[in-house]
């Protein structure tokens, strides 16, 4: 069941009505049942995976908190890590690993029959696996207490708005909110609705429109000019942002309506003026996850300078692999890791004090934009050879010309990007000004919301486009 479907809207409406009709203490049951139903709409069998992850981490966390011997605690933590990561490896990475090993041996003329595993990637497995992992690790570290109520813990793992594509929540934020008494609040309903609308705008008006042009170009790379590929990659930058952030906003809005505040996942990443700034704004729940559970355990910046660079690089490499079982994602991680290390190196070693009086924000935004477009040569490409083909065509073998495809679609792509950018510039640099959906005047708010809905209806793409991050 996709957020951008009538089925979801009806489902959500029913859940909300029942949610506020029943007593507070029974709401977790409704949330759990609706979350499992939501997930089963994809592939009912895969509910077993969520249930097994939930059960294992529930008991492991309680046991960890009860045991006093550190070595036994560690063993239980490893058990949870191995269990969860094995599921992830089996369903997401086995074929990638299998193919890579096979190709490696083939390169040395060693041939064997490759075992084939024909399984569908369970939707959202990377998200809920990371969510449960963070819980067990936090309990092990003593940062959080184990949840004794199995049902409420199960809701934390499977809460339907953020189940399949985040934000990746932390138990010490989420579970207390779940337990808190919630009254029907006009503010929550109104805010949540507006956040959802913004998410629908990003997904339907911007992301799904851009995908038509981007797919046209990337599925026929050989015949495209260099400028067309650069344009498609720039469009993809906006597409993936709006696709993913759109999902996050719909999730955050839906949860807000139920009185639950999910964490912010995107903060206008296209206005980032440095690589470090970008990762503070992009997929925040995952960036902070990697910071807390990968980068800091590796030693973070409290190590030698070379090790610090290595830690940064490794964190990005793993982040790349998290995104997908393909060498294109690994290279994407390497690419970002390199630029991150480079930026830190320059900041530490190059004296730019005389330049500090100048404002480099705009230049920074442009440079980060260009670096991001380059990263999507890997991320969007269908294969590594496609990625290298793109780099060759853009930097070495320039092919003149430009194809806008269907001009109507191309214009609508530009319209969507322009509206998005103007709104984000306003939010970033003029907060509290030119308010429409949050104007003090009731009628401006009401008419503004109605016009915004009309714009979505008129400019949106309603062909039920999948969310890109579901595949991760």
């Amino acid at each position: 069941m996709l957020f951008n479907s009538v089925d979801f809207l009806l489902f959500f409406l029913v859940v909300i009505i029942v949610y506020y009709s029943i007593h507070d203490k029974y709401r977790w049951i409704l949330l759990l049942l609706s979350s499992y139903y939501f997930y089963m709409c994809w592939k009912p069998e895969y509910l077993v995976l969520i249930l097994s992850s939930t059960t294992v981490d529930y008991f492991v966390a309680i046991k960890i908190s009860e045991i006093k011997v550190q070595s036994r605690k560690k063993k239980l933590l490893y058990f949870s890590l191995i269990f969860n990561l094995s599921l992830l490896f089996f369903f997401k990475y086995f074929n990638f690993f299998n193919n890579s090993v096979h190709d490696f041996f083939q390169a040395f003329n060693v041939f064997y029959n490759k075992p084939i595993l024909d399984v569908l990637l369970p939707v959202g497995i990377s998200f809920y696996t990371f969510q449960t992992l963070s819980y067990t690790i936090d309990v092990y570290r003593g940062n959080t207490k184990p949840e004794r109520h199995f049902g409420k813990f199960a809701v934390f793992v499977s809460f339907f708005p953020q189940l399949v594509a985040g934000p990746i929540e932390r138990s010490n934020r989420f579970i207390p909110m779940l337990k808190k008494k919630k009254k029907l609040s006009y503010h929550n309903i109104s805010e949540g609705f507006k956040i959802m609308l913004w998410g629908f705008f990003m997904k339907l008006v911007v992301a799904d429109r851009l995908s038509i042009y981007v797919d046209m170009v990337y599925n026929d790379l050989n015949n495209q000019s260099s400028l067309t590929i650069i344009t498609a990659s720039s469009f993809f930058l906006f597409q993936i942002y709006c696709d993913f952030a759109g999902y996050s906003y719909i999730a955050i809005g839906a949860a807000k309506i139920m009185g639950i505040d999910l964490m912010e996942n995107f903060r206008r990443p296209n206005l980032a003026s440095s690589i470090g700034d970008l990762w503070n704004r992009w997929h925040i729940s995952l960036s902070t996850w990697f910071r807390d559970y990968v980068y800091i355990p590796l030693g973070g910046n409290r190590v030698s300078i070379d090790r610090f660079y290595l830690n940064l690089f490794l964190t990005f490499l793993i982040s790349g692999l998290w995104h997908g079982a393909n060498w294109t994602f690994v290279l994407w991680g390497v690419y970002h890791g390199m630029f991150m290390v480079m930026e830190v190196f320059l900041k530490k070693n190059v004296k730019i004090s005389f330049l500090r009086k100048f404002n480099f924000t705009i230049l920074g935004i442009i440079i980060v934009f260009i670096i991001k477009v380059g990263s999507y040569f890997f991320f969007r490409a269908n294969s590594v050879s496609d990625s290298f083909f793109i780099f060759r065509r853009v930097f070495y073998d320039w092919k003149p010309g430009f194809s806008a495809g269907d001009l109507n679609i191309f214009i609508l792509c530009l319209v969507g990007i322009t509206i998005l950018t103007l709104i984000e510039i306003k939010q970033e640099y003029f907060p509290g000004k030119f308010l429409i959906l949050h104007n003090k005047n009731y009628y401006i708010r009401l008419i503004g919301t109605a016009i915004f809905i009309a714009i979505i209806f008129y400019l949106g793409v309603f062909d039920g486009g999948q969310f890109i991050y579901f595949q991760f």
Partner: protein
Amino acid sequence: MKNVIIRISRNIIFLILLVAIIDILFGVIFNFIMYNSPDGRYFKSIHTLETSTADILIMGSSKAETNFNPHVFEKTLGLSVWNSGRGGQSIPFFRCVQEATLKRYIPKIVILNLGAYRLENELDKNRYMFLKPFYWSHPEIRPILERKSNNEKYLMFSSLYRYNSVFYYLFRSFVIHGIDGDVKMKGMKPRIGSIKLDTSLNYKHKIERDEKTLKEETILELEILLKKFNEAGVQLYVVISPDFQPGDKTPSIDVYNKLSEKYNFKIINLMNDNDFIYKPELFKDAAHLNLEGANILSNKVAKKIKSMLHN
């Protein structure tokens, strides 16, 4: 709690009312603009679905639109002609044209241009949706438009949805006259200029393609189209237009041949016609003839039809 529910309900009602007013208002404006198009895509669609009474109806996608000159057919056959071809379209669009036409009148002849690979493609469920503005005025095409999704019949209540994203095509005929084909060309959209050959490529060979499986759903849809014309007593001619390079007989053509007996239509296969292949002066690109090529093809097809009529 009661006050909150009242406040939320009141705002929802106001919001729905406002959205409905905007929706209706824009629907009226877009409808007015569409029905006053001086030419262009929507002018052509209105004429095809609502006013054309031509004896000969040309149907197809971009090849039909550019390769068949109604004036040449009229001169040779002495019958009125309308070219309903539309670039990028496939069988569902032809079905919409068929349903709307047969509801009003029965053309004497239908010339249907079918690609040599048409049945290898999945049945389109999107491109013909530009006909959404005609959903309510043409109940005969509703079932075809509703195929896109289960929610289509509900979404169609919204004018904004019916006119979704079409402003460029809706407005451009007012700004650039004849960009989508001049009214005088009776639906044809001629292409001017000649193919620019890439000197590094060798064109002197047949196009080789990987064999693809035919799509069952597409074949079934074509059968419905052929059956309806047959039942209506329309003389149907299926034309396979030439490309710049010759091609082999395809599985799609085999199916056309099989169906021609079942549904009583004639096939004019000009795929490898020597009057066209390797003649850059007659082509605008590898698949579409220019006006000169289109006139020659139209003349050839018209004469073949004439001889078949006499036989």
